[in-house]
């Protein structure tokens, strides 16, 4: 019987080894381990053995059964794996085929840049304000220390609706409107559309976008102006960016300056981008003129402030290397889709 068992074990092992699909393996299992299987039959014959032989043979028979079971299980695992491999191989696709086209929407490049600036200022505790685009002469000029007769009011530059109503030429009137409704400390930016009667060309548009900024508090000085706008420059153009203030003139700030950033293309060495100057002008700023604070209902003896203005088109021009302003308003999908 011992020999018989050994033979069966060998036969079963061979049968398992020869099974090259799951069905053959199942057939082998039934043949040896099924209810009427050959190993099962042997086990059924245990009763006929002497009590001495029974435990010995029983142990042996069980060992054979277990070995065969394990071998079948292992073979089944192996076959399944192989079968899956074949299936996967058959399912091979050309992964270099293009992906399926997804609906693609884009923000306008001017908005992308504007959002970047908003994000920077919100991080510094600024609120976002807005004001009317069709504005009173008072807010656009008079309250900003641009009295009747000032060259900036010339109708060459301003679109008028009536003598008193106009299209705002700058976002600065929002300064006055904001001060009328808010007490210091004030930190706000006011982005928006402005209008000037410049015919359309590569660098002019009768409509463009500005971002006004205003900070009013006790003891605000030009050092705060420099610090704040240096932070803006670094966030926009990188940690190594430097700024340079050049004295300038705006009627509503005093002192006034234009602010240049070290050229973000060449780092200040000089290149076509900065016209070999190493500096690029990005904004105008200054200490809020005491008369303007007064117009906003704020006591200039107690408070001081600074204000600044940025051109969004110009920022976007630098950000995206756009060399023609008209592209922003032509809205060709081939242009808009690039951002």
């Amino acid at each position: 019987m011992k020999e018989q068992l050994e033979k069966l074990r060998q036969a079963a092992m061979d049968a398992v080894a020869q099974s090259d699909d799951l069905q053959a393996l199942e057939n082998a299992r039934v043949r040896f381990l099924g209810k009427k299987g050959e190993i099962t039959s042997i086990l059924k014959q245990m009763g006929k053995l002497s009590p001495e032989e029974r435990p010995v043979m029983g142990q042996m028979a069980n060992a054979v059964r277990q070995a065969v079971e394990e071998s079948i299980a292992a073979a089944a695992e192996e076959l399944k794996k192989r079968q899956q491999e074949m299936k996967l191989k058959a399912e091979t696709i050309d992964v270099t085929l293009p992906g399926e086209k997804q609906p693609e929407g884009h923000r306008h490049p001017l908005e992308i840049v504007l959002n970047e600036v908003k994000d920077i200022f919100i991080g510094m505790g600024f609120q976002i304000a807005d004001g009317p685009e069709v504005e009173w002469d008072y807010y656009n000029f008079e309250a900003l220390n641009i009295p009747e007769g000032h060259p900036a009011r010339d109708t060459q530059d301003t679109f008028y609706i009536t003598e008193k109503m106009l299209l705002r030429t700058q976002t600065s009137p929002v300064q006055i409107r904001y001060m009328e409704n808010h007490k210091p400390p004030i930190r706000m930016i006011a982005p928006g559309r402005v209008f000037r009667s410049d015919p359309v060309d590569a660098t002019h548009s009768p409509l463009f976008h500005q971002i006004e900024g205003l900070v009013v508090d006790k003891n605000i000085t030009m050092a705060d102006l420099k610090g704040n706008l240096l932070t803006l420059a670094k966030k926009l153009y990188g940690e190594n960016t430097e700024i340079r203030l050049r004295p300038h003139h705006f009627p509503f700030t005093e002192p006034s300056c234009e602010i240049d950033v070290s050229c973000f293309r060449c780092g200040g060495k000089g290149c076509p981008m900065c016209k070999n100057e190493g500096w690029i002008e990005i904004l105008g700023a200054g200490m809020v003129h005491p008369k303007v604070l007064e117009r906003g209902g704020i006591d200039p003896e107690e408070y001081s402030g600074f204000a600044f203005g940025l051109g969004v088109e110009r920022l976007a021009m630098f950000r995206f290397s756009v060399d023609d302003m008209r592209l922003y308003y032509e809205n060709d999908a081939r242009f808009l889709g690039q951002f």
Partner: protein
Amino acid sequence: MDLSRRWLSDYVDISEISDKEFADKITLSGSKVESWAVEGEELKNIVVGKVLSLERHPDSDHMWITTVDVGKAAPLQIVTGAQNLTVGDFVPVALDDSVVHGGKEIRKGTLRGVESAGMLCSVAELGVSTHDFPYAIEDGIFILGEDCNRTPGTDIRTAIGLTDTVTEFEITPNRPDCLSILGLARETAVTFDKELKYPEIKYSTIGEDVRDYLKNVTIQAPDKCYRYAGAVVKNVRIKPSPLFIRERLRACGVRPINNIVDITNFVMLEYGQPMHAFDLRYLQGGEVIVRNAREGEHITTLDDTDRALSPEMLVIADTEKPVAVAGIMGGEYSGIMDDTSTIVFESACFNGVSVRKTAKKLGMRTEASGRYEKGLDSDGCLTSLRRALSLVALLDAGDIVDGVIDVYPSPKKQTVIDFCPDWVNNFIGINVSADEQKKILEDLEFKVEDGKIYVPSFRGDVEHKADISEEIARFYGFDKISTRPLSGACTGGFNEAQKFQNLIHARCVSLGLTEVKTYSFISPKAYDKICLPEGSAYRNSIVISNPLGEDTSVMRTTALPCMMDVVSRNYNNRNLSESFYELATVYIPQGENALPLEKKTLVLAEYGETKSFFTLKGKVEAIFAEAGVTEYDVAPLTTAASYHPGRTARITAAGKELAVIGELHPDVLSNYGIGAKVWAAQIDFDLLYSLKNTLRLYKPLPKHPAMQRDLAFVCDKSEPVGKLEKMIAAAAGDILEKIELFDVYEGIQVGPLKKSVAFSLTFRAKDRTLTDAETDAAVKNAIQALAAIGAILRQ
């Protein structure tokens, strides 16, 4: 403003300062340099030569063979076609491998068999003109005059004085004093801590009295003419100015004419004060009357143009007629002619606004008007006049009659400001001692005394201590001010409305819509293009009184035309299929005494093969869902003129029109030259915002199973599906969780004028598992409800 370095050097010593350093530092102290260039920089290898011999070319009837001494051991042989040479002349010689004006390169060569070692040059070939060298001729070789350095071999630029550096400044409108050599010299002196020397004013008169010639000066409009000063020069000797005048004018971009005209221009550039010279012969009655023009009066100005004057314009007149438009341009007879013998020099100060308005109305801006517009210093008139007279003396241009007439009805009051160095330090954030501040101010010719600052008359821009702080800061150096981050806490961030806008923008982009930005102004014809009916309220727009053109002349009341322009441009640029949106502002007039209502409208448009009314409607629904707006009605809209009457919907919410969605009317498409179908939606963004509900509260996930029933009904083709949906929802009751349309069929199987509409209904109760009976009862109710309008369940 172009500045001649040579001229500047007459008053400030900048010999040790390079052009670049000058440009950099003067920019940082407040006078912005746009660019600078050295005269004659392009000229290369051109020297002075002396003509030694002159012979006819054997093979040419017009060329000459010359030998020229160019300061080298041997003279050069040069062939020239010019006819104005004489032996002994000094001429510019472009040697072999030289460059003349315009970048043209000159090399030695052979002309009709005769070798030529270079070229003799004309004035034009050196980049100058016969105005700069009045003794030269245009059509010939430049024969150097005695005012040139005529040593053979001398570089031609040195020889003729073409060596100046011209610096172009951008002067801000508050600083008309810097539109002058002396103004910039003052800034230069303070910037580089140098001494400023003023020009010497010195002349003697021939006696007599100015009033023997110029009998009277009357200012009839003192609000427009603050001061009028005049002097008389007789026996005028008109001739070219000397080189020092000509080269300075040339560098500043002014063409030399003759000594008298040049003197007026020279003084204008030097002092910033426009001057005018009248021929006394043409001053009827020998009087100057400064008055408003009379109704219907005309003047022919120096540029030979007849101009109609109007009463708000200021003129300089004699007893009969206007002889000049004040501060802008003289009349035809006021000019200096070859036979002019007695002249009146005018140095006056006019109201800037009046000059600007007149210049604009007449359409002529001149060098003088550009200066007056900015508001000149009335105190400076007399000095400028005396400077002109001293130049007359220096140039021997005539005999100066004794005395000046100076009418100055109300002399300017000096501005006085408290001297508060501490305030300045605190305001700027610097620490500059009172003494240092005083020095800066005094160098700028302010007087500081007893705690007061007395502002010089030419600094009309300084009127407040903040202005003083700027003077201190810019000469102390903006770069030396420290840098300090903002201190103290402030709450920043978007407000509710801004957050909502951000949300909707993000949703639009995620729906595949691309944002466009269009002009706020449109042509009134745009309303016709979108077929708005005559009399539509939308045609009432804010009108720009001085538009650039009709295309941008009214403020839009609807953004649809702007969107159609964008679609049209893209369609015509062969962009086959696009989806756009714009969150646009429209401007609704509220009368003259109120600003217009600025409303926000969200405009969507799409076109292309895969697009349809329903793709766009799906986007609109998604936007509403994002806004949390779920309660709205959709109904056909047949009366929107821009849209297809059978393919347009109006969406109403809270009793108001929230949106219109539709296929554009074929007439509109044809007006925009679009050969494809376009769908557009206009959403009232302000209304959407007021209806928004962006609060999201968690709803427990269903615990009990749902039951589903599919039902198809046959009804009249004209029956809107939306109505069926609503009736089913109402009849099926609370346990109806969801109703979804899955098929609409028209065809022979349902018969003509009929359609089959199939819905999938999902039923669920929150608190229990529904029984078949409950669901069947709900379905039955729905079927009965629809039967009432003739929609029969399809078996």
